[in-house]
């Protein structure tokens, strides 16, 4: 029982990070119908930004308080990563809007390769590591045994929950969120109502990048190590999560993220760690056979 609960905590932690990345995929897909393959690399870039900022703050500037340092990294990292997200959209995708469907996709793959190579060149190909932080654990007795909850796991889950609540509020109840949903449903009509579609798309990229930035910081805090190639696997997993949950659906992205995290963790815990990715992707394949639009996605058919 305690082993199961322990894995549940580990799985939810990992799933939270996937969920945060998956939202970036799903929002962009929802609004312009394009898979932003560079999003995983934006996440990787964010992890590097977080690492560099964190080291600069604690080592060079001597910020003593860990909480304060992390908070500054969070805010500054979000700003910088958002800027990257915005620039990528302006340079690589906007000029191709209205072009054939594959063009932005190819451009996204190119951007993904560019970002990982860029980081490899300027940061070197080796893993960058950080001394463990927030590793104190809470020991919770359960029945005969006990489970441990690390501070950083708690941090990841709390931060994710708060961000999701904020995002939910923005999308549901603010003019920006309404404009985003309107663009998602009918871009032409939205522009007839005075919505600046290009600006709305830019803001969507910025929001996705900001969430990826938090995911990057949390990843860096959790694993204490980042590499230029870290954009790929977590990126693909988060994309899988978005598809599993139903691409275009926000709750779907979160649900998909948590599920992928849980499947991966439980598979490693009860079977073999070697096949954890196979397990996650197999579940995706099975779900898509029976629910082609994902768990919470809506079918393409619409009443006219």
């Amino acid at each position, binding site marked *: 029982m305690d082993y199961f609960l322990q894995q549940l905590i580990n799985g939810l932690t990992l799933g939270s990070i996937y969920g945060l990345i998956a939202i970036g995929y799903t929002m962009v897909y929802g609004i312009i119908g394009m898979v932003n393959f560079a999003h995983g690399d934006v996440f990787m870039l964010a992890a590097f930004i977080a690492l560099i900022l964190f080291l600069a703050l604690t080592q060079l500037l001597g910020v003593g308080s860990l909480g304060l340092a992390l908070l500054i990294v969070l805010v500054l990292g979000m700003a910088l990563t958002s800027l990257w997200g915005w620039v990528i959209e302006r340079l690589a995708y906007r000029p191709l809007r209205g072009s054939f469907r594959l063009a932005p996709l190819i451009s996204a793959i190119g951007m993904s390769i560019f970002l990982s190579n860029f980081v490899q060149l300027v940061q070197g190909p080796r893993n960058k590591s950080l001394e463990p932080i927030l590793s104190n654990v809470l020991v919770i007795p359960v029945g005969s045994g006990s489970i441990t909850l690390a501070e950083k796991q708690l941090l990841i889950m709390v931060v994710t929950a708060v961000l999701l609540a904020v995002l939910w509020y923005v999308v549901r109840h603010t003019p920006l969120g309404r404009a985003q949903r*309107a663009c998602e449903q009918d871009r032409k009509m939205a522009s007839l109502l005075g919505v600046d579609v290009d600006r709305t798309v830019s803001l969507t990229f910025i929001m996705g990048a900001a969430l990826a930035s938090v995911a990057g910081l949390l990843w860096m805090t959790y694993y204490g190590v980042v590499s230029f190639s870290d954009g790929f696997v977590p990126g693909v997993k988060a994309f899988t999560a978005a598809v599993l949950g139903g691409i275009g659906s926000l709750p779907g992205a979160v649900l998909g993220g948590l599920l992928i995290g849980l499947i991966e963790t439980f598979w490693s815990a009860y079977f073999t760690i070697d096949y954890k990715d196979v397990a996650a992707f197999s579940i995706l394949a099975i779900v898509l056979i029976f629910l082609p639009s994902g768990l919470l996605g809506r079918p393409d058919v619409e*009443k006219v």
Partner: protein
Amino acid sequence: MSTPLLSIEGVSAFYGNIQALKGVSLEVNRGEIVTLIGANGAGKSTLMMTVFGNPRAREGRILFEDKPITDLSTHAIARLRIAQSPEGRRIFQRMTVLENLQMGAAVDGSVNFDEDLDRVTRLFPRLKERLSQRGGTLSGGEQQMLAIARALMSRPKLLMLDEPSLGLAPLIVKQIFATLAELNAQGMTIFLVEQNAFHALKLAHRAYVMVNGVITMSGPSRDLLARPEIRQAYLEGGRH
């Protein structure tokens, strides 16, 4: 003579290589109801969209309140307070009626939202009962009312309507046209595109007839209504 609110001067527009509008000129004066009638595929809806720069006019120019808007982006044109209820209504299906109306008010930052909501729901009481319902669940007539109400939420100087009668029961059509007359009596300038020529000509002050992207006739609606070629081409079979 006062200057027109909207003035379209020799406008041509294309879809790819197909020319949809061939040197169209048309004017809408303040306080008027002007209607554009014509058969399916004549280019009426294209003209509505060309006013909004999508597709853009390749020749000619479009003036609104004496200022050229030919090169403005669609959203910038909408922000000049030109509102459109487009072909096919284009309700946001997965948003509630209230949210659809909020989208309509987005142009002016929703400053007068409550007042305007009150005004349009008095005009269309049916919408008031349905505020929290999703747009996609409304009937055709209700969707049309919502499309007009949404356009009105921006306090437009010019209201452009594309086929508000399409696919609706005669009684609902009557209701909608009565509402348009009421709006006009309150000072709203309306540009109405219709296939339902009889009702449109009855309602409008002036009318234009479009055939294959060219304006072939224009004049006071009453005169057009009396002309045998109009009766034959657009009113055959009496009142639709």
